[in-house]
C-alpha cells in the first residue's frame, strides 16, 4: 500500500482473477484492467520514468499518455490501462524502458 485511499466499492457479479504484481499475489476481478486492479489494491506506481527516475502511475487511462507502461507477462511497454487482467498474469513495475522477460520473447 502507498497510504492513499483508493478502494473498490463493489464487485457486483464479477468473479475473482489471480495475478501477481512484482511477484506478490493480487486478487483482481474479471472486468478489471491491470491499471484498475492495481489502483483498487492500493498500488499507484506503475512505471519509473527513464529520464529522471520519477514515479508514474497512469494519467489518461484510455491508452494515450504512456504513463502506465508496465512489464506484463514479460513484455515491456505494455499499457496497463487497456490490458484486461487474466488468471496467472505476471505484472511488474517497469523501470525505464524495461526488460524483456523469457516468456515475452517467445
Amino acid at each position, binding site marked *: 500500500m502507498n*497510504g492513499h485511499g483508493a478502494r473498490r466499492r463493489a464487485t457486483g457479479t464479477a468473479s475473482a482473477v489471480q495475478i501477481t504484481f512484482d511477484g506478490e499475489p493480487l486478487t483482481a476481478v474479471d472486468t478489471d484492467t491491470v491499471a484498475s486492479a492495481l489502483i483498487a489494491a492500493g498500488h499507484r506506481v506503475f512505471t519509473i520514468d527513464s529520464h529522471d527516475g520519477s514515479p508514474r502511475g497512469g494519467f489518461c487511462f484510455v491508452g494515450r499518455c504512456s504513463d502506465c507502461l508496465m512489464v506484463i507477462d514479460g513484455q515491456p511497454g505494455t499499457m496497463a490501462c487497456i490490458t484486461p487482467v487474466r488468471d496467472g498474469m505476471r505484472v511488474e513495475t517497469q523501470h525505464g524502458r524495461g526488460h524483456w522477460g523469457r516468456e515475452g520473447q517467445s
Partner: protein
Amino acid sequence: MNVAVIGAGPAGMIAAGMLARRGQSVTLIDEQTGSGGHLRYDRYPVGSDRHDSDSWLTELRGAVDSSNAVVLLSAIVWAAFRVGDGFELAVNHAGAERTIVADHLVVATGTTDLALIVPGATLPGVMTSRAARILLNRHDVLPGQRLVVVGAGVEAERLTSDLASAGAEVSTVTADEIESIAGSRGVESVHLTGGRTVTADCVVVARGEAPDLQLAGMLEAPRTYDSSVEGWRLAVGADLPGLSVIGGALLGAAGPAHVVKATIDTVERIAPAGPESGEIGLDITGAIIRWEAVQG
C-alpha cells in the same frame, strides 16, 4: 469502397453502421476491448424518457452489429499513410502487427482531456476526469479518499458531485489556484495560491477537452491552434481527399447533438443517399432530441 473508421465511440459507430448499410465495406477499429467510447464510462440520464448512456450504447451496438461492418477491438492504429489514392494503416491487433488497406478513412478519434501544467503534475494520483470516471463507473473503484477536482466547467461540477456521492471527500479548485502538487511516491498534498495547502491523495483534472488529431495530423491534415481549448482543431474548409474527420475529433466538446448531426452530414457526403438511405438501424432523430436534452 473499403472504408476504415478509426474510433468506435458514438460518432464512429453511427458512421460505420450507416456506411455499411449503404453498401460500403466497413472496418470499425478501436484500441479498447469494447465499442462505445465515452459511453462506456459516462453515466448520465438523457432526457425525460430515462434514456441514459447505457441504453444509447445498446442502441448503437445494435445498429453496428446488425450491419455488415467488421468491428476490430483491442486494435491500436499506430501509424497511417497515404498510398496512391488510398490509405494503409499500421495496426497492432491484440499484440500482432497487421496492415489494413482502405480507400477512404474516417477519423473518429474523439477528444483528449487537457493536462494540468504545474510542478508535481506527473505524480501518480494525478489523472484526467475520464480516468476517474473509468475507475468509478466501469470498475467501481474510487480513485482516492480525499480528492481535488481541478476545473470550472460543467464536467468539473458533475465529477465533483459524482465522486462525493460515491463517498469521497472532494474539493474543487480552478487551475489558476494550483501552484504545485507535492508527494514522494504519489500525490500527498496540493499547494494553492495564498499559502493554502490541501491534503489529497488524488487530483482529477477536469479542465476541458480538445480534439484528438494525432492520427489526422500524421496524414498532414491542416490544423490550427485554438488557444481557447488549448489544442489543435482541423483547419476550417480543409481539403482532405479520401479523409473525413468526424465527432469529437472534429468538434471537440461541442455536444452530442452536434456530433450526431455532423456525423450524418459526413456520411451523406461519403455515400450519398440511395434507395435504402432512410434505414440506418437507429432512431437518430430520437437520439438527437435526447442528446439535446442532456445539454440543457
